[in-house]
């Protein structure tokens, strides 16, 4: 560090006006495992594939869906370690807000602060952008919300979205199946069906993860037993 050759930003503009590193980061996201989210009228569901490296991996120890606060959860597509770092930073920001205002952080504010962190890594020297896109699901005073945050730091509110390997098939499927007045359980079924669309192999409670939040404002990751129940209903 401090060597003059590395003191320029890796995200200098190309002549076509693009930031090439961010494009490459999006490619990293696009080759990650599929994840998706749906906003129902009374809650939000997020889900992801959980394909492990080998059958020897202890699948109970792998948790791709994480809490940021008791009422906000998140999932990613892309590089797992980058996700861990972002989760850590976001949790800290949420706690700082709570400590200052004694009020839980609104979903929009947390998403904005996380996106700001990701943007900082596209404009600082000696760092690279995060290789993840996040789906943030939360329920606060403004109701259920679903946000996607990209490596560039841009964020969007979605009614339903997908990321990762199977993004185009998944989005087409969601466009057909999504309705505004869907309830949370319907949304979970639709999420499972969407994951199934591009799934290689047999879908089961051991190779997908589902998280949901309802009007009770408590984000929960479903247990394998609960996932099995939903899978049975979908069959």
């Amino acid at each position, binding site marked *: 560090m401090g060597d003059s050759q590395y003191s320029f930003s890796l995200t200098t503009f190309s002549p076509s006006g693009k930031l090439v590193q961010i494009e490459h980061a999006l490619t990293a996201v696009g080759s990650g495992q599929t994840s998706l989210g749906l906003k129902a009228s009374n809650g939000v569901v997020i889900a992801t594939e959980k394909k492990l490296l080998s059958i020897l991996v202890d699948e109970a120890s792998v948790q791709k869906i994480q809490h940021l606060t008791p009422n906000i959860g998140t999932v990613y597509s892309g590089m797992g370690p980058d996700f861990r770092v972002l989760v850590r930073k976001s949790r800290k920001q949420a706690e700082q807000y709570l*400590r200052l*205002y*004694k*009020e839980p952080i*609104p979903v*929009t*504010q947390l998403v904005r602060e996380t996106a700001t962190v990701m943007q900082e890594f596209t404009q600082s020297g000696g760092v690279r952008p995060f290789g993840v896109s996040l789906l943030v699901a939360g329920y606060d005073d403004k109701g259920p919300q679903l946000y996607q945050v990209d490596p560039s730091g841009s964020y969007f509110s979605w009614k339903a979205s997908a990321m990762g390997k199977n993004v185009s098939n998944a989005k087409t499927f969601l466009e057909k199946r999504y309705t505004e007045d869907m309830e949370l359980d319907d949304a979970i079924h639709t999420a499972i069906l969407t994951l199934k669309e591009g799934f290689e192999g047999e879908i089961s409670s051991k190779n997908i993860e589902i998280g949901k939040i309802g009007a009770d404002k408590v984000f929960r990751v479903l247990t394998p037993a609960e996932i099995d129940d939903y899978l049975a209903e979908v069959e």
Partner: protein
Amino acid sequence: MSIFEYNGSAVVAMVGKNCFAIASDRRLGVQLQTIATDFQRISKIHDHLFIGLSGLATDVQTLYQRLVFRHKLYQLREERDMKPETFASLVSAILYEKRFGPYLCQPVIAGLGDDNKPFICTMDSIGAKELAKDFVVSGTASESLYGACEAMFKPDMEAEELFETISQALLSSVDRDCLSGWGGHVYVVTPDEIKEKILKGRMD
């Protein structure tokens, strides 16, 4: 003389039925000499949130400017007004930041929260919050104010009666304190309107 008594002040807030009142004296002094008789101690943060600051006048003004600054940024970021409880937590945090070189003021915060429920609280100069359901007082006349409010307060008063009660409590208390007085400034806030009145008491 303590530094808190350098300028002289009296601030009181009371809870009514879906309304609140906040009142202060108007004297600004330099120890025994009166410099101004129109000093503003109570300021509006937004239509349903007021803060009254007693203590050293320079800190009163600076702290008020800092709090307005923070609230304006909050409004822009979150696209909503701050709830009174949230604002109280913010004031407490800002005061504690200066734990070892504090702002020499005691704030009194009064607002209407969710469902127009009145909220009042006070805190010491390093941010220890004290919530109350009836009234809170602060300033050099605080001991008299405690007595007057305790005697005159009734729960669930309407705006008119609340105005009379807080005015009487303020005027009678500052009469017993040489460092505060020269009239009163009262705000009575209901969900629909803010009534501001100047009181003429013993002008000494």
